[in-house]
């Protein structure tokens, strides 16, 4: 089994943070589960065309957080005790922070953003196709 991690060079997060967040995302959407194997440092570095030390750094941080463990000679695995719910909270905070930043750049207050999200959500539920078209225009 292999996970698909996506790295965006224009993203404002450092690459090692992006790797960590991508692994969190894989846990939340359950493409990774307890004891799933992760790609080797060399493999992931080659796949993503990034410095192996960056992958190493991401793995080290994740290990420190207790999300993954290294078994010498066998590889790196997701911890058996991992709680996707907790990771979901972390991811939600990241998404919220990005949205708030973007709102501030556009001169919007947090309250305005929140009520717009609620409105948009109920519109999406009624007519998903039309709303997604409208939103992208």
């Amino acid at each position: 089994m292999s996970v698909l991690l996506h790295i965006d060079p224009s993203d404002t997060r450092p690459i090692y943070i992006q790797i960590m967040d991508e692994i969190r995302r894989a846990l939340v959407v359950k493409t990774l589960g307890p004891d799933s194997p992760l790609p080797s440092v060399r493999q992931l570095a080659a796949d993503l065309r990034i410095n192996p030390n960056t992958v190493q750094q991401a793995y080290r941080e994740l290990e420190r957080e207790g999300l993954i463990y290294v078994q010498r000679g066998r590889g790196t695995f997701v911890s058996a005790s991992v709680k996707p719910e907790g990771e979901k909270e972390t991811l939600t905070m990241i998404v919220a922070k990005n949205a708030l930043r973007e709102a501030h750049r556009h001169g919007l207050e947090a309250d305005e953003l929140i009520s717009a999200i609620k409105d948009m959500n109920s519109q999406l539920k009624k007519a998903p196709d039309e709303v997604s078209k409208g939103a992208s225009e």
Partner: protein
Amino acid sequence: MISAIPSDLEAGNPAIVTRDLMKFYKKNRALNGLDLTVPDGAVYLMVGPNGSGKTTTMKILLDLIRPDSGHAEVFSISPATGGARVRAAIGYVPEGRIPGYEWMQVGLLLRHHSSYYPSWDSDYADSLIKNLEIDLTRKFRKLSKGESRRVQLVMALAHFPPLLLLDEPMDGLDPLARDRVIEILIDYISETSATVLASTHHIAELDKLADHMGVLFEGKLLAQNSREEIHTSLKKYLLQVPEDWDGSPDLSNAVVHRKGTRPETSWEIWGDETYVTEQLKTAGAMVRSVVPLRLEEAAVAILAGKEQE
């Protein structure tokens, strides 16, 4: 040196150190007090306009030329006194072609080159030759720029040196070959933990590989930092400001580069984000967004800021 940006890189056991290097070509000043520090195991990107001293620096490290003053060390050895030992530890991809061997067939050139290196690994060389689709029967003279680059890469890597000096390594390569070269370099770094010093005009191509960057201008460093430090400390502040706004006096030394006109303007500033934001607010600006810079944007801001001085 832009006063805002610290350039004293902490490195316990650096692979490369140069201190106050000076070099003139006749009356042309190529290096003007270069203080380079490349930590062991780093992938260090050296960027700067043509004539800023990148190639000269590499040649001094290889003892192909000597500095007029100052000193250099590669793995604690001075190239001037231990040239052979230093060159044995370095894989070098030079900027131009290799003079003197133009008449050789590529296969012979590689055999000849390998004889200088006891650590030459023929199996690895063969795999690189295959991977880079090198035709051994062609004359070196007949190769295009990109083709000779691939041969030079094999020559640089196959003796497993702990240090790579790559002078514009992607020059002349097509997109697929560039991608292969990146992959080869990643494998090499994974395998050997080698240190890499690379010069390039195309920062974006090596961006994801680099963990350090030095910006050269007229033979001197304007900045030299880890990728993480650049990412944390150099940010672009999008500001909405009053008509007569003239910046924050407390930040006058920290502004690296500014662009745009009032009322909306964008300043690249070095410093702690919270502190900088506070100062900007106190001075009457509204901070609309704060974003970190990619290495290429950072280099451009630093060089453009130099011109604004």
